[in-house]
């Protein structure tokens, strides 16, 4: 669960990257003075009102190398020969974004939810042992998107472009260990841990899109997300264990012009 401090941290990181991207866009428009150009951008954003909303579903691979180690440590600590049933596999992701078109580029905010996890278990006549990791990530990023100035001859309806997004990523890991011993009056023991971390990320993406109608666009993208993981927190810092969502992303979404 997010709390206020998490949201504030995400916003802070997002604003920083927004400023950075805005300045980057200023470098591209260096034909005039910097200050005048910025004023013209704001005027166009407000006056032209080309606003798009997008919803997408995707599939991502997640590094989670540190979590894999943590999972293994849990198994070792339990002393049981538990075997992994799942080990932070690639899994679905979902997101929405809102953007404003300016000068053939889109600037916008993106909100995306990711999840993955792991399970190690063993069971016999005497009981069972299950160690679950449930990882969820919420990212809030500012992106800039620009179409490439070319089209394929054979599929003239498709356009290609690139998308660069940066922002903050909040991770929440729920670890639950459950031991069930048969033939005991109170033979079930459950222990839960929750780790959290907030890190910056950068996600460059290539996409292609085609119009469905004059208001709706179908967009497919492939990218790779890079994050800078930090030690997770319980009530204190847990050194050596980070949640890294780095990995490839494939997304398919619908974009609608409002």
């Amino acid at each position, binding site marked *: 669960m997010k709390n206020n401090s998490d949201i504030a941290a995400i916003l802070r990181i997002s604003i920083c990257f927004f400023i950075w991207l805005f300045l980057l866009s200023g470098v591209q428009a260096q034909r005039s003075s910097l200050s005048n150009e910025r004023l013209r951008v704001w005027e166009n954003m407000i006056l032209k009102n080309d606003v798009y*909303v997008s*919803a997408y*579903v995707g599939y991502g691979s997640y590094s989670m190398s540190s979590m894999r180690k943590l999972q293994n440590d849990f198994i070792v600590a339990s*002393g*049981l*020969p*538990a*075997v992994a*049933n*799942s080990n932070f*596999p690639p*899994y*679905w992701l*979902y997101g*929405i974004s809102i953007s404003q078109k300016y000068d053939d580029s889109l600037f916008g905010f993106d909100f995306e*939810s990711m*999840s*993955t*996890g*792991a*399970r190690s*278990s*063993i*069971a*016999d*006549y*005497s*009981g*069972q*042992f*299950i160690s*679950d*990791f*449930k*990882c*969820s990530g919420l990212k809030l990023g500012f992106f800039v998107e620009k179409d490439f100035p070319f089209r394929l001859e054979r599929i003239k309806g498709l356009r290609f472009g690139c998308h660069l997004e940066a922002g903050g990523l909040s991770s929440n890991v729920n670890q639950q260990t459950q*031991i069930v*011993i*048969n033939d*005991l009056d109170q033979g079930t023991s459950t222990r839960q841990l929750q780790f959290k971390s907030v890190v910056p990320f950068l996600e460059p993406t290539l996409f292609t899109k085609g119009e469905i109608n004059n208001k*709706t666009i179908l967009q497919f993208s492939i990218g790779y997300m890079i994050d800078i993981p930090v030690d997770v927190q319980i009530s204190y810092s847990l050194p050596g264990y980070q949640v890294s969502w780095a990995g490839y992303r494939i997304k398919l979404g*619908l974009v*609608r012009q409002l």
Partner: protein
Amino acid sequence: MKLSHLIFCLLLLSSCAFEPAGLNYVEVEKPAASYPLDIHLSLNEDSIYLYGDTKISFNLSTFGKSFNGAMIHYYDQKISTDQSAYSFTITPKQTSDWVDLTIDFYVSTGSGSIADKLKVENYIKSKTWKIKYFDLEKEGITTNYLIHPDGFLQLYMVLPKQRPGNECGMSKYGNDMPIARVSGDTIFFNDKSYCGGEGTYYLWYRYDSKHVVSRNINVNLPKAEIKVEAIGLDSCRVSWTKSPLKLYYVINDTQYKGFGNEYRTTILAAESKYFSLNVFPPDYLNQRFGSYSVSTYFSLGTPADYFMCYSVEKDRFFISRDATLSSIEKATPPLPTNEPNSRYKSKVNLICSPNGKYIAGYFYNQVYVYNEDLTLSKKIDGGSIPNYRPYYSVTNDGVFTYQQGVNIVMKNIANTDWTSFSFATDLDSNPNKVYFSIIANSIDGKYICVWGINEFRIYDVSDHKTAKVVYTLPAIEIGGVVAHPTNPGLIYVRHKGVMELRTCPGFELVKTIDIPITYYYFHSIDPYSNVMLMMKDQYYYFIDPNTSKVLLKLKLESLYDYNVSLLRNQFKTPLNVLDLTNYLK
């Protein structure tokens, strides 16, 4: 697509967060239901006695299985350990009840199952002991004593069960006594010097380096009590209470020595015999400490150091036991014993008339006259009466007659018109030189027979004014004279060596009496039974004048023991009185 559709799709998708699934089941063989386990406790008892902080160790043999742990419960304490060999210390509570000490042992089944690896699948062996705190100051140590078969006192101390220490000892009045024997948990001490009576023994026991507890054993076996019983009239049996100890007894240093409790010896009729019993311990040859002695005096018959007289007409005794001399008592057989502590009290030497009307006593130159109601009537100055073989009598006419040197003095104790009368005789002035029975009053008081130096005379004193000689004989012909105790007209006289009964004052022969002994001294005649009391050598002879038989013969304590009387078969000595009724038949 409408925006609402888009949002719906997003919410639907967002509910599909990653959920871990799957379970890896492995087949593991179940373990056997039970497994042998062997427990060794440092105190291999079902009941554990605590005397203080107690360290207890256990060792569990698992026979190849791994030991998972043990849980120890006692009082409200719980101790867990994962060591199969472990020690713990119980600090006991002062409860009066036995409480449980329970140890639950958990041993891995070794099945390799999840529960086994998590150490919750165990062979469980639970064992319970009873524990109880004993305050050695109050309990836990038994002490007592017994009599050893060899007859000495043996004290023992049963050490506390599961005793933590062994050092102990015993002392008596500060003297240490060595341990005699150890049998199991019982320590024995011998006291071969104990003979009886109160004894306190201090036994101590050290149960650790700091604490010593002790017990006192008070032994109070009764000391010997000496008892003397008459056996007939010439011997007695000295016995003493039998002690459970085998004691060594000595009577009067030499008369008896041994381990018995009875001794027989001779005793004279008028003898007060002293018996001293020395009691020595069983080990009397080496141990003299603790010996003691008890003693007693014994005489035959009834102790009677009082004076008494007898009225044959009233068949009544009068005795003087009142130290104030203000009254006398009457008595009939059996005669009373001494008053307590009467030995040094004043007693008047009583004499009464045969008719019992007149009773008088002599005490330090005073004649005490008593009424018939036994109260003191008056005291009359009697002058000096020799206290050696004194003669005095009271006749039926109320005259107190006594010898005062060569004179015979007559005091009127009846309330008649004369008071006193005396006359001189040819009696030797030194009474030690004259024979006994020199004077005899006829019981009516009319005549007095005097056996003097030169003559035997009968005086007529009936007028209480003059003494007229009415009959004489040469003194050599007479060997003794005694007035008949009931007939005023008769006297017994030893005339020319023959006992005769003659008239008085006519001196006519009534009959001769055959006396079976010779060279005797004629002492007196019992007015009740007429038994004649004779003395010869060192014996009293009791002779029946009718049959001339010696009914009884008693040995005298001394050659000149004249101060006796035979009245109504009661043989009175200055010390005692013997009822001879059964012997004088």
